[in-house]
């Protein structure tokens, strides 16, 4: 994955801003830093698919921060499309059905955890039961 990492993240952001131009202003003018972070996160997810706890910790934290940037649960679905598009544009027909499924499930797992982290952390005000 490493050699194509840069190409992937470039394709990713290009696709993202094509589809949602309004988002461009949420990111810094120089995307370099951002692109490296993206790749790091994806690598982390792949490495930790087998052990949940580190993934949980990192993803929920990431999710909470994304909430602060104004990311809504509905955005995660859109991001999946962007991710898969970027992946295909860079890996071409190496992305078989199996690979597609694997990435999709990995993404869903991570985003599910992120959304959990995004839920406000204060305890429910519940006087009853």
């Amino acid at each position, binding site marked *: 994955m490493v050699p194509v990492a840069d190409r992937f993240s470039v394709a990713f952001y290009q696709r993202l801003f094509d589809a949602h131009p309004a988002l461009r202003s949420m990111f810094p003018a120089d995307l370099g830093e951002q692109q490296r972070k993206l790749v790091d996160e994806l690598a982390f997810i792949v490495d930790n*698919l*087998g*052990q*949940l706890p580190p993934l949980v910790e990192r993803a929920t934290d990431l999710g909470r921060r994304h909430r602060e940037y104004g990311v809504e649960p509905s955005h995660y679905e859109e991001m999946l499309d962007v991710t898969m598009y970027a992946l295909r544009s860079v890996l071409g027909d190496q992305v078989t059905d199996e690979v597609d499924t694997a990435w*999709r*499930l990995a993404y*869903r*797992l991570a985003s*599910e*955890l992120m959304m959990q982290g995004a*839920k*406000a*952390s*204060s305890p*429910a*005000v*519940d*006087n*009853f*039961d």
Partner: protein
Amino acid sequence: MMSTATNKASVVLVRAPLGGGKSRVVDEITSSLAASGRAVRRILATTATASVPFGAVAHLLPVGAREGSDALALIAGLREVLSHTASRRPVLAIDDVPLLDVATAGVIAALAASGEVNVIASARDDEMLPDPLVDVLLGDRAVTVALPSMTDDDISTLLHLALGGPVDGGVVVSLRDRSEGNPLLLRELTRSALDSGALVQVENVWRLRGDPTGSPRLREVVESRLDSVAPEARKALELLALCDIIDLDELELLVGLEALADLEEKGLLRTLNRLGRHCATLSHPLHGEAIRMALPVLRSRLLMRNHIAWIEQHAPTHTADALQRAIWRLDAGLPADLDSLLRGAKLAAAMQDSRSVLRLAEPLFEQRPTAAIGALVGDALFQIGQWDKGFAALDRAAQLPASPHTRVDIGVTRATILLWGVGDAEAALQTIDRLRADPEMSPDDVVRLNSQYASILVNAGLPGIARAELEAATTSDQIHTKLGAAVAYTNALAMAGQTEQAIDAIDQAMATRPAHAVTGVADVDVYIVAKSFAFTEAGRLAEANALSEDGYERAVTCSRPLTQFWFSLSLGRNHLLTGAIATSLRMFTSARALGLDIGLRGPVRSALTGCAIAHALLGNVEAAEAALAEREEMPPFAFMAPERALGDGWVAAVKGDLLEARRVLDVTAVEAVATGHISDALWLLHDVARLGAPEAVLDRMIALAATTDSAFATARADHVMAMVANDLNGLVRSADRFEAIGAHLLAGEACVAAAEIARVAGDQRAVASLTVRAERHVGLCDGVSTPGLVASVGIAEPLTEREREIAFMAANGLTTREIAETLFVSTRTVSNHLQHVFDKLGVRSRSDLRATLDLGKK
């Protein structure tokens, strides 16, 4: 979904099939709301609390609340507890709302309707919502969210997270197929596979070892999981299935801490905090259902008796108040505290929960029969339609010593059953009269009795003499008397032609009601039927229909046959007046079936009369006669009796005996006036005129119409006046008035009569335009035929299809050439046709033609 739901609606109903995850969704919504600062109150409805008055909220009430005798104070207290708030409206979250007890449902419905709370509720797809809450949960300000099944990806992700590691594809496929996306089933299957060792983690990946056996049906999966629990530990689950929430101390005593820990580990039991004590509950209601089904009766008795013993020794009173304990004891076959049962029954009666009243008061009546309890039982039996048993209970009660107030209760219930169940208005009146003569009655009792008497009078066909009493009752400060008289008063006023007063009276009552009633949308419907009636009598047919159609819809949606019956009758009657006779017949036929079904045989007389009239107007003589014959098999029913002569009149008319028809109507009209049915009298007399003898009735109609404020009544009288005077303009005005009211049959008849006069006067133009107009009105009347619609010879020869076409084109400004080109014929053909049109319609030019046809379209 959440933001949509809470921004635009004030009530959310989450529906899903059993195990679809609705409780979880409600949890998520409420957590999110709570996190954003809203006050959230959770109310859990369970089978154990479903049939206990205020069972679902007992733990929220102050100690001893259900032991007082003041239902209103309790309700007020509960409202306060549920709705008080610092800033924004609180949110009530009710899981499993179909299990909510009637009393609590009533209070919540009132709070939601007045906008004091938001509601989020969950319900299984196949369960019915509690009656008092149907309007709130399905109304305009509510949104229903139907949960979809889980997708394949959802299932994979969920399994990975739940099991803590990646899951082999085969596992996903197997569990996915067998659960079909149902979250609970997925969970149960997964746990089952874990328990049996079929699902194991191999080198960090979860795999299935061997074939997962067993049924994929949810209940069976649950049952087999429960079967695997040791019998000793099972006792804990059984007790929980019976009582929902049990103190941990008690459970520990019963089965030991280890067993409890094991159950918790298996996900069959979870703990919670209730009123400061550690308690346990089953993890899913479905487990409770499965256990209860398998629980033998004697075993459950034994468990309950042990439970009661423990409670009475160890638990503080507020854990389970006197009412709850009494009910438990009753169910366990132990002697119960009768005072608690009585208080509970009265509470249930206040909330109109008849089934709970019977559950609590019937055993009470057996063991300690008193007149007051008998009155409660008798009324509850009446409410659920068991009239014979109701009478029996009242008879027994009447033999016991009773206070005057109780004797009034007994008498009023007996009179009600006599009136509506048996159809014997005389006996009902006598019952009340005997009580009125009783010297021990207090002034308040007397007011109440007079009001009842007067209401019965209206239903007994004597609205005239009832009015003064009813007016007095509506100014009483006893709310129940005041509201109870309102409907009868409105009806009496409408029947007397005092329609504005009638509408005022019912509006006032409807405005007063909400502050005092807590349950029962059915109550409101009784008022709406009366209001619709008043509108009709006032000549506001469109508004009357709107009310009745809404009410009919509501009654069908909420399964309320009684109100559906009354709204059907109302619509049937209205459409006799609008002239939509086929619709009218349909409504009357439906009312007949319903009425017979629910045992309202007396009122079915009205439905059958309506059928007879409609059939007669449509020319189905046999069907009309059959309806009248069947009517005579029904018990007597005097409410608005004079109107029923219309059936006899029109059937005679359609058989050709106009003389007899008029006689029947005229004679009945005289009775109608004598008893205060002024608007009926006008209808009857009007029909005498329509059936050929306007001179015979004109004077009376003028005099009667002058005593009413109804536009309809006046229109009828003026119509007859114009008929007698052969006044063409008067008839046209009548047609206009009837059209404005929406009474198209009458408008059509007025046009035909006017056309006749025009024909005799040689005014061809008027003849043509009036005929066109008459056709338009009659076209809305489903092919009915009345004498008034049949004019004698001389109607202009009708246009042929082609002539009609050309006439309209010409009237709309097309030249002969343009018409010819459009129709692909020669201009000569068009000219010929146009000339024929001119001749037939008696006009000389295109502008005349235009004027004639426009006149008809007015």
